[in-house]
């Protein structure tokens, strides 16, 4: 299957405002695709559409061939799409360990009743969960902080934790929403390496929304450019960099007003 995620003619209207207009977007398995555009272009809206927070006014969204268009967000996550948020949304009163552990609710076999009886099956599953979460934290160097309240971590660590948490849902597609925001150049380099590592080790596709061009060019094989909700260009980083429509979108408007 060459189309893991497919958006066809997706339009999103809020009252009178068209945030996204007739968008066609494809992400293949294990592909690294970037979604860029000036502020207000509709990038986060596209993420919200894919993850089911909004339902498109028109168009269809399919994942692994199945229609996702009107599914509830938790069902979409269960299908294999995970995300991080532009403004970090960790669970503020939970520890680092518990934050990642929440992702395990997806496939929990010993839930409500078993939590009360605490039989062998429950205890075995809790032990398995602990192992999984800790090894995941270990991979990303956060195991030492596992009992710390998540919001006590440094900003960079919090962003990493959000990615770990998303990975714990065992996705096939990871949506990263401006992961480099607020990072210094060193951190951004580390982030580029991290994303490559994640993609390689977990064999997942990544759709990245990002303003920092260095990160985008360093990570993505293919880039889609949005402006005012419509796709204006698509192609390899080198082509996009030289594309006049893209340059116009980012700089042109100011140049005309100058």
């Amino acid at each position, binding site marked *: 299957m060459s189309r893991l995620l497919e958006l066809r003619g997706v339009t999103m209207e*809020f*009252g009178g405002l068209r945030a996204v207009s007739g968008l066609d977007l494809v992400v293949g398995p294990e592909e690294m695709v970037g979604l860029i555009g000036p502020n207000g272009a509709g990038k*986060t809206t596209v993420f*919200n559409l894919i993850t089911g*927070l909004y339902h498109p006014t028109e168009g269809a969204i399919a994942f692994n061939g199945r229609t996702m268009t009107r599914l509830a967000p938790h069902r979409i996550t269960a299908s294999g799409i995970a995300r991080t*948020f*532009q403004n970090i949304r960790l669970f503020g009163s939970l520890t680092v360990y518990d934050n990642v552990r929440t992702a395990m609710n997806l496939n929990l076999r010993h839930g409500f009743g078993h939590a009360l009886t605490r039989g062998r099956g429950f205890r075995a599953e809790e032990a398995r969960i602990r192992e999984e979460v800790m090894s995941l934290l270990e991979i990303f160097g956060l195991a030492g902080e596992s009992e710390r309240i998540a919001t006590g971590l440094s900003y960079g660590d919090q962003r990493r934790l959000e990615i770990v948490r998303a990975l714990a849902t065992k996705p096939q597609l990871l949506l990263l929403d401006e992961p480099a925001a607020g990072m210094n150049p060193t951190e951004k380099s580390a982030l580029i390496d991290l994303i490559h590592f994640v993609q390689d080790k977990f064999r997942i596709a990544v759709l990245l929304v990002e303003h920092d061009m260095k990160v985008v060019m360093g990570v993505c094989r293919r880039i889609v450019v949005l402006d005012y909700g419509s796709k204006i260009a698509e192609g390899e980083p080198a082509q996009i960099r030289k594309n006049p429509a893209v340059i116009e979108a980012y700089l042109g408007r100011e140049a005309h007003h100058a």
Partner: protein
Amino acid sequence: MDWGNFAQQTVNGVSLGAIYALIALGYTMVYGVLRFINFAHGDVFMVGAFAGLYFHRWLKPLFTGWPAAASAIVILLLSMAFCALLGIVIEKVAYKPLRQRSRLTVLITSIGVSLLLSYGAQLIFGAAPKGFPQLVANHTISLPLGASVTVEQITVLLVTLLLLIALTFAVMRTRMGLAMRALSNNPTAAALMGVNNDAVISFTFGLGSALAGAAGIFFAMLYQAIDPFMGILPGIKAFVAAVLGGIGSIPGAALGGVLLGVLETLVVGYSQNIGIPSGYRDAVAFVILILTLMFKPTGLLGKSEREKV
């Protein structure tokens, strides 16, 4: 079909609705500007009624020789001013410290304020209902279809209408009204544009509380007895009216208030025919609330709000 009865019920319902509308306006304005449900608002209504009672008692000697209407107006204005002041003080003391916190936190605090007001009133005035004086003449006027309307009801309707017009003028045509609308639309931008948020918020609370105070006096005029807990149920019902009309919308609050008043009165008036005991009168508002929030949460005239992700 007994049209006379229907007409009478409708007249009664509209008068009750006017009272709900006045209270609902305060809820909707505060919600529009601050985005929270001020649970204590209903108790300001109660304070208005008590203020009316005591102003009348204390100032009666001064009013000898005055026409009833004039003294009634003075008492109304004094009570409205008192309530406005009370509203402003409550906001400064209990709600201002919570401006950066969530709406639910302030709601909980406002429940505390509401209890403080009603139990405080009980402490001061005692729990027993008090009679409210006759402020205007005691006539009944006949209407077509065999219905009748009292002078009190006409007064309530007319003054409510006047207040609504005044309010609309204030919100649409004055600078303060513009500031209110700006603040409710976008607090950050409003502050950057030079709007003194604190002043606008105080003004909104003052205005809403004044209207609630007026509603208290009208209620007392129509139903003739007041007690420290009279505000709780009408307060919640007026909130329902605001939601029904579309929370944040001033015409919505007025519409919702009147609709609720009429519906409630009709349900009680026709309770025999529809098989619902009249004891269910209070449940009407709650049922309307639940239905509205389930099927049209933005209300009849409201606009929807989206959370930014």
